[in-house]
């Protein structure tokens, strides 16, 4: 079956030819970080890492919203789920992520009313159907997702719902990249920027990466040819000593992004500081409800007591998220920590770096 906009970007002959081009062109060291978890999966799944010349190294970054959700935010969701009339609604990815002592999946098994939804709009519908319950949506995600939550909050207000709330733990990408580069922990020579975050915010919020830090950047799509072309474009920038923001994913990313979505997001949310798991607080990279929508804030509306935060022993998800360690360099990887019995979030989320490396055997011991 041919799937338009998917199948043609998986053509093996073109892929092979692009790999040859990359190998022929690359002479300088290229340490490329893929920011987005969906890219990490694409690279592991299609075996792209093994096709690269020795000069090109691919590092995973902090681009899995599930993985960077702070323990304390998961702890709060868990505590909220224990309140009698509260129903927690969440994207499926969050269910198995461990907090300090438990996970939503464990709490559900223990009897809490926790439901997986496909869209925040489903949670709005649920609130309307069950007026006797307070429905809390666990709002995770980057700029791709935040506008969909914002639109759902607007819809809840329009319907006059008093029993719909969100626990907003959104994060925004550009300033997190600034913090990552400023830290100087890893010398990144190129960035593969997230295609769907960029479909919303466009190219301009990234300009500082090239202008201030001289880091070449390419916004990439998610099929194998997209990623290979993005790598080739980055290698070309690195070889010529240039640094600019290029768009490989032109079918989905306009220079201005999706302004309706940006306006919707800005109507409901305003920037705040955000606590990134194992990275710490990055100023201005969170989103909180504006005054006009404060009535939907679960944190203010439903008081719960939080347990002391605890990080899993020996887990090095932090180093993995910052690109300091490859997943397989963590002592727990594949031994004490597997997708079946995960210790840290990067092994839980389907788009976590550790899970992607493990599932597709994308590490030296596995490939020999």
């Amino acid at each position, binding site marked *: 079956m*041919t*799937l338009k*906009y*998917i199948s043609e970007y998986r053509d093996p002959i073109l892929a092979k030819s692009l790999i040859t081009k990359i190998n022929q062109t690359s002479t300088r060291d290229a340490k490329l970080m893929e920011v987005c978890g969906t890219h990490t999966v694409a690279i592991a799944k299609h075996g792209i890492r093994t096709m690269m010349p020795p000069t090109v190294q691919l590092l995973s970054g902090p681009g899995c919203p599930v993985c960077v959700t702070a323990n304390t935010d998961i702890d709060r969701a868990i505590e909220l789920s224990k309140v009698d009339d509260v129903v927690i609604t969440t994207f499926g990815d969050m269910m198995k992520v461990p907090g300090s002592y438990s996970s939503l999946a464990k709490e559900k098994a223990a009897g809490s009313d926790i439901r997986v939804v496909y869209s925040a709009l489903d949670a709005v519908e649920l609130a309307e159907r069950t007026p006797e319950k307070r429905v809390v949506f666990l709002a995770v995600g980057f700029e791709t997702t935040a506008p*969909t939550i914002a639109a759902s909050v607007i819809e809840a207000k329009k319907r006059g719902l008093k029993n719909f709330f969100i626990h907003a733990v959104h994060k925004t990408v550009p300033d997190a990249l600034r913090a990552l580069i400023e830290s100087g922990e890893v010398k990144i020579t190129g960035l593969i920027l997230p295609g*769907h975050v960029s*479909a919303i915010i466009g190219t301009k919020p990234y300009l500082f990466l090239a202008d201030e830090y001289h880091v070449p950047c390419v916004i990439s799509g998610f099929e194998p040819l997209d990623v290979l072309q993005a790598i*080739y474009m980055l290698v070309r920038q690195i070889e010529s000593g240039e640094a600019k923001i290029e768009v490989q994913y032109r079918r989905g990313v306009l220079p201005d992004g999706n302004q309706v979505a940006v306006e919707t997001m800005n109507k409901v949310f305003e920037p705040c500081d955000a606590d990134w798991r194992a990275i710490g607080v990055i100023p201005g990279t969170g989103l909180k409800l504006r005054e006009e929508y404060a009535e939907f804030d679960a944190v203010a509306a439903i008081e719960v007591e939080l347990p002391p935060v605890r990080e899993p022993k020996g887990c090095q998800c932090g180093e993995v998220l910052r690109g300091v360690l490859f997943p397989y360099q963590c002592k727990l990887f594949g031994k004490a920590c597997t997708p079946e019995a995960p210790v840290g979030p990067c092994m839980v989320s389907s788009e976590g770096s550790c899970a992607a490396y493990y599932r597709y055997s994308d590490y030296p011991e596995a490939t020999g």
Partner: protein
Amino acid sequence: MCLGVPGKIVSVTDIMGMRSADVDISGVKRQVSLDLCPEAKEEDYVLVHAGFAIQIIDEQEAEETLKLLQDLTGVDLPEAESAS
């Protein structure tokens, strides 16, 4: 998590100012909100994320990307794949 799946709008409905569309995603039909893509219309391909269309896919740019790849590598793709 930031998955965006391409799908084709089969029909558009407008209920009390709320526009939504039936979108064919790889053969599966799904209702999505057009709140964030008010200009999307029947026959358009859109990127679908968490129940919303988040962007209209630019067909011309899609074809140009493929053409660029073919020029770059000297490989021709079968016509049916690249033609709209």
